[in-house]
């Protein structure tokens, strides 16, 4: 008995020796696990950056060093933004219309205040994309908005940017990529260029297969082809900008021809072809904006796209497309979805778990489940209410935003010399949305 006590003391001491080793219990909030029904008087217990318990507060057993009473508050998983341009990075440049080799992670500034805006809006996981000004503008990057990230490596989801797949592949069709020669000037040509590129990638893959591991027979390394190989293998997801109904169908046609995994982004006219999207089993990441238009293909954008897609059985997520909408107002997307007929639960899921699925990260984020990353937000009330504020944002067990902390708060409100403000994504060359 004594030995056991001593052992536990030693063990405890060992646990306390490193930060975050002791469990923290947040109790008495309304908890939205998202993968199951909301829990009144719920509890969330985290340890070592992971979730170790989600359930009713009164079912919580044992005592905890850190107990935070969050009565009257609401806890959601950290929000997942499937399409954003924060970080001041860029992608494909004007030298070509296809850049499968270009990684946006080589161009992002981890100190950008746009990340601070995002955590003020409750976003913890974000897919940062190059623009849609080209057919294939480059590799996207999946980031975790961890505190004190000094380098892009500190923010990556992947372990090793030299060997791992750290994001998706941004593609676009429709009018954004239509330009004067040498770029593509028509939709038919755009599709042909993409098909030719994928045919080349299939040949590259065949060469590798034929080599059967013999270094002598391997093709020369080609980083464009290597990225496309990952796409063909289903390890890198195509994140595809598309608005008009016929453009949506073109994406589906290409994805079937080459068998790549794809997420449709924006999908302004998705409501016209919801059945076709459902049949192809392709998920949609949509944007909720205040008014339609701004360009021809967004003229028929309507509030009820999410509702129509949900009804058809399509997996729906939201994105900010920040600078198009501001990360600080991401919750508002879900409220507008409900306004236009989307179900409450699906709308919450569209901010969290659905987005995680579309990035292939659902094993780690998107819901509050035992074993997942301790990424969550504390809200002052109903997630869909105008009056609700993101009060705290936690990433992997660490609080990265607290509205009561003045330094954090200013990024949520704005004001004199808070933001650099010299960065405006939508007018960048090739950066149209």
């Amino acid at each position: 008995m004594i030995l056991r006590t001593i052992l536990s003391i030693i063990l405890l001491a060992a646990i306390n020796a490193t930060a975050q080793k002791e469990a923290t219990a947040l109790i008495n909030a309304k908890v939205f696990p998202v993968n199951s029904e909301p829990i009144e008087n719920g509890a969330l217990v985290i340890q070592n950056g992971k979730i170790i318990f989600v359930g009713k507060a009164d079912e919580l057993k044992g005592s905890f060093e850190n107990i935070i009473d969050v009565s009257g508050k609401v806890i959601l998983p950290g929000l997942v933004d499937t399409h954003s341009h924060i970080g001041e990075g860029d992608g494909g440049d004007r030298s070509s219309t296809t850049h499968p080799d270009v990684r946006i992670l080589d161009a992002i500034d981890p100190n950008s205040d746009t990340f601070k805006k995002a955590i003020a809006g409750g976003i913890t996981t974000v897919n940062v994309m190059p623009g849609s000004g080209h057919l294939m503008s480059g590799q996207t990057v999946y980031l975790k908005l961890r505190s004190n990230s000094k380098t892009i490596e500190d923010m990556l989801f992947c372990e090793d940017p030299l060997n791992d797949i750290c994001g998706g592949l941004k593609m676009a069709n429709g009018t954004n990529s239509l330009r004067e020669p040498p770029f593509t000037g028509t939709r038919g040509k755009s599709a042909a260029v993409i098909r030719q590129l994928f045919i080349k990638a299939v040949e590259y893959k065949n060469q590798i297969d034929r080599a059967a591991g013999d270094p002598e027979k391997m093709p020369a390394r080609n980083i464009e082809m290597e990225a496309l190989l990952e796409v063909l293998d289903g390890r890198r997801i195509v994140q595809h900008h598309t608005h008009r109904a016929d453009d949506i169908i073109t994406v589906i046609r290409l994805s079937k021809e080459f068998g790549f995994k794809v997420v449709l982004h924006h999908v302004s006219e998705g409501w016209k072809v919801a059945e076709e999207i459902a049949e192809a089993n392709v998920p949609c990441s949509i944007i909720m904006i205040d008014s339609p238009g701004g360009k021809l293909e967004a003229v028929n954008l309507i509030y009820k796209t999410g509702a129509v897609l949900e009804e058809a059985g399509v997996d729906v997520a939201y994105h900010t497309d920040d600078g198009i909408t501001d990360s600080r107002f991401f919750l508002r997307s879900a409220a507008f979805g409900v306004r236009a007929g989307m179900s409450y639960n699906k709308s919450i899921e569209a901010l969290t778990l659905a987005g995680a699925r579309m990035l292939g990260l659902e094993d780690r984020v998107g819901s509050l489940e035992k074993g997942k990353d301790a990424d969550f937000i504390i809200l002052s009330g109903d997630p869909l209410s105008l009056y609700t504020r993101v009060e705290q944002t936690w990433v992997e067990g660490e609080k990265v935003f607290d509205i009561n902390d003045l330094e954090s708060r200013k990024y949520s409100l704005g004001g004199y010399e808070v933001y650099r403000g010299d960065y405006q994504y939508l007018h960048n060359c090739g950066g149209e949305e």
Partner: protein
Amino acid sequence: MKIILTFILAVIVCFNSGLSQIAVKGETIYTMSGDPIEKGVVLINKGKIEKVGRQSDVQIPEGYEIVEGKVITPGFIDARTVVGLSGIYNYRHDQDQLEKSDAIQPELRAVDAYNKDEKLVDFLLSLGITTIHTGHGPGALASGQTMIAKTYSESYNDYVVDSLTMIAFTLGNTVRSNYTKPGTRSKGVAMLRSEFLKAQEYLKKQNSKDEKERPKRDLKLETLSKVLNGDVRALFTVNRAVDIMAALRLADEFGFKPVLDGVAEGYLLLDELKVRKLEIIIHPTMVRTYGDTKNASLETPKTFYEAGIPFSLQSGYESYVPKTRVVLFEAAIAHSYGLPFNEALASITINPAKLLGIDESVGSLEEGKFADIVVFDGNPFEYTSHVCKVIVKGKIVKDECF
């Protein structure tokens, strides 16, 4: 012939009478003149508001169509937009808000470019915006004129409320990004001073007793002289504090009282703005924080309110997606960031009505005013509430919850 005429007359009479007598009942009616009325009713007759009061006090005459909703507000007024000149497609052919051939062109009339059938105008109407102050946009030292329009119209004769409301001026970085001249802030101010000096001269000659002394008509100088003699107000889009002060300096030099638009850094100049009792249209609350509005704060409406400075809100100008903002949503965000409910509503109803000089006819629910009314199924500012009916001049023009 006579029969046909009588028939047409009869149809017109039926058409009007059939639509013009309505009783709008609401759990809460925000009249914007006095306290909200619980369980209230607004009687509409012949396009105007006949009576407003509690349901227990107001007898609904027989034959009135009954409309019911949770919350009733006046039709909203957008204090500053470019919709109608700036269209939904964002192609050259539907973008008439900014002429780039010269940085000073106050003579450009809004009525010559306003497209009443523009889709965005109807879109705004479906969210309860019944009156807009629209016209030439920000971005030029003097981009042109503004006008007031109704967002619902049935002909080319019925939508203009005021054809020349203000002249739109802009100071700041946005100007130099649109023109090679001016290339700096100071040059922009100098260019405007030169034009105003010419206009002073023009005005002097125009008032000359000797007919030979009078100048040939010059549209530009004629328009600027209207600002100088107080016939038309100058609307200055100024967001940085330095630009706000430059506008006030210009106004002092040439003796006019500007309406300030944007004012993103106005929180640095509260005393100055208050002392001068200036009319102010604050930028859209959710304006993007870059360029001249990089220092915008979500709490600016609250700050102005607490400082006792009245203001209106606006949708402003959007260059891309979304192509317009919606004042209802901008007021909602202002409210959620500390502006009291009633003040947020005032910023898109009675305040802009007063600012635009149309408060005799719109901006509040009072006897004798036009029956511009919005019916909601909940708190107007909640994202999940809907605009269920929009009534313009006594006619139900939107009848589906949106």
